[in-house]
């Protein structure tokens, strides 16, 4: 993203720098290109939202960053996290940075929490394992973490099993586990998607507060514009494995540039939606095994012209910190 070229960023070097990231899945002579060239920088204290519909490559992009993908995946490009070249790490070093430098939270907390051990035990265990401290120190940290994520009667909850907790408390326990070793980067994959409205807002507020307090960088995957508006500093809109628009969240919402972003905003029912008809985007996202030539959005785009199908448009700068991958944008802005 153009952010790295902005003057303020020079004094504040990015924690994470990603260039030309690709991810493909190979099987039986088939190759599915899930991520097709993603570039961005992220500094400490900031939240980048990856926003897009199902299958657009959000999860694969995020998991590629810590190479947490099945063996059929081929990851290309350069990933530099806190001075470490992630692509060059062996399994042992990868395991070491997962949990210390970077950790992850999920939509379904049971992915992260082990039903066999108490919540307190699991948190203590990662602290003991990564930091080599005593079990009593680990347990003390576990209590601090449950307090930090605002679990009521935290001391009692240390000895709870995950299945004994309500949905919202489980989500908090998972966040406590993820943050126990003070990672610099938090990867959040739709952590509020399965939650009810009144609980979702609690968890979003908590994550915002924790970020202010702890100052980590966050990549937050969501398909929900409303969630992005609550949590993001910057947003990258994804379509068919590429960033099609990036920018500061308020600007992207107010003045979307890419026809896909414009369409997404128009088709989302929100609190201020007029009764009557919506303006949907026609058709459906492309089949990644059978991608259209050129701009992947062209078959659904009302403004498409012949040239759109010639080659994939560049992610062109609209203004500093603001980019869109559409020939209409690259034509109207001096490069």
């Amino acid at each position, binding site marked *: 993203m153009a952010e790295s070229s902005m003057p303020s960023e020079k004094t504040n070097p990015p924690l994470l720098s990603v260039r030309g990231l690709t991810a493909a899945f190979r099987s039986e002579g088939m190759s599915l290109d899930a991520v097709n060239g993603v570039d961005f920088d992220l500094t400490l204290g900031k939240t980048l939202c990856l926003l897009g*519909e*199902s299958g657009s490559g959000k999860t694969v992009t995020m998991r590629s960053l810590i190479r947490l993908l099945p063996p059929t995946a081929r990851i290309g490009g350069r990933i530099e996290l806190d001075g470490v070249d992630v692509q060059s790490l062996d399994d042992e070093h990868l395991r070491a940075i997962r949990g210390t430098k970077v950790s992850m939270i999920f939509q379904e907390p049971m992915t992260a929490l082990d039903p066999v051990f108490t919540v307190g035990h699991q948190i203590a265990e990662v602290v003991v394992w990564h930091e080599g401290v005593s079990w009593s120190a680990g347990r003390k940290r576990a209590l601090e973490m449950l307090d930090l994520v605002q679990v*009521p009667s935290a001391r009692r909850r240390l000895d709870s099993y995950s*299945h004994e907790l*309500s*949905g*919202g*408390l489980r989500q908090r326990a998972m966040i406590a586990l993820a943050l126990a070793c003070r990672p610099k980067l938090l990867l959040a994959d739709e952590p509020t998607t399965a939650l*009810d*409205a*009144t*609980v*979702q*807002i*609690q968890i*979003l*507020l908590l994550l915002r507060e924790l970020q202010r307090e702890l100052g980590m960088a966050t990549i937050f995957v969501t*398909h*929900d*514009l*409303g*969630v992005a*508006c*609550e949590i*993001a500093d910057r947003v990258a809109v994804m379509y068919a494995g590429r960033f099609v628009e990036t920018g500061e*969240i*308020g600007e992207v*919402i107010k003045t979307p540039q890419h026809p896909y972003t414009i*369409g*997404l905003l*128009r*088709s*989302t*029912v*929100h*609190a*201020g*939606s007029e*009764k009557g*008809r*919506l*303006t*949907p*985007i*026609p058709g*459906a*996202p492309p089949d990644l095994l059978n991608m259209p030539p050129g701009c992947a959005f062209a078959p659904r785009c009302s403004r498409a012209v012949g040239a759109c199908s010639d080659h994939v448009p560049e992610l062109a700068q609209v203004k500093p910190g603001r980019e869109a991958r559409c020939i209409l944008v690259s034509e109207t802005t001096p490069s």
Partner: protein
Amino acid sequence: MKGEIAIQREHPTPASEPVDTLSATRPFLRVQGLKKYFRLRGGSFGLAGAYVQAVDGVSFVVATGETLGVVGESGCGKSTTARLLMRLIEPDEGQITLQDRNVGGHNGMSLRTLRRQVQLVFQDSYASLNPRHTMAEEVGFGLIAQGIKRAEARRRANEVLELVGLEPAIFADRYPHELSGGQRQRVNVARALALSPQLLLLDEAVSSLDKSVEAQVLNLLIEIKNRLNLTYVFISHDLNVVRFISDRVLVMYLGKVVETGPVEKVYTAPGHPYTRALIASRLSMDPSRRVEAAPVAGDLPSPINPPSGCRFRTRCPFAESVCSLREPPLEAFGDDPAHSAACHALIPGSGHSRAPAPGGEPSTRANGAPK
């Protein structure tokens, strides 16, 4: 709990039942005192034999031609209500009348007749479509089951596929795996429409779709409703979508109706503290006006041993002793007789400190709403 007594014909009308002027004119569907408790089996947590109070005394009406939205968080009993209406499960208590005829029982409407008039559309999933059926077979299946000839069923299937925007020449012979999520949901709607029902129960019918496709299906639903003069019960956890599509709404919490009324009333002047919290929990879509405080703390208590009195009292900022002692009835409040809520703070003389004085004018009563 007597499962075999499906319907209590002499179910007394509670004195507190709200007068619904809109629906009283021509109720298409009337539901009174619907109740369903599920008995837990096995029970790894020592709860075997306990009951989930999934739907507990739910009453409402649906007027011909309207869209009634049903909202509430997961587990509040929305799907159970829909399955009870379709008689996919039998109620423990309560009465359902469709166009003034009782459903079920000895001389009530048969299930066959019920299902010709009322059809259910579920959340999209592969599970709802048979993987070995072509779309024409899937859509025509219910017709053949109703005794309609194969050729006629095929003709009707093509007709409704066309109606939902799926060109029969292209889609009639396709299998579910050859369709996108949005197309599969159109097939679900087509299958429901094949029997020419008058009422569609839409249970999270657009919830699993991506936003760009959700908008297509919402437009389709609005269009065919107008074209075919249908009546909808639209169930969803998505507050914005419900506001967009509904004329009236029903808000549920832990198996109970807590508020009901015209959609704009409920969204702009909610009376029940739960409705207020729910409405305030919607995300702003404006990064410069973010939500700064959680409207309500905690999450839903278990429906197995729900709180006494008002079921929301364990999370309610206005809870007082009366709230745990007595269940608040659903009563009209404020300036619109069709707008009701079940909260002691709104009921004159309930004993709640915020309740309006008994006998006050309706307009002053409105000020009694907890602020």
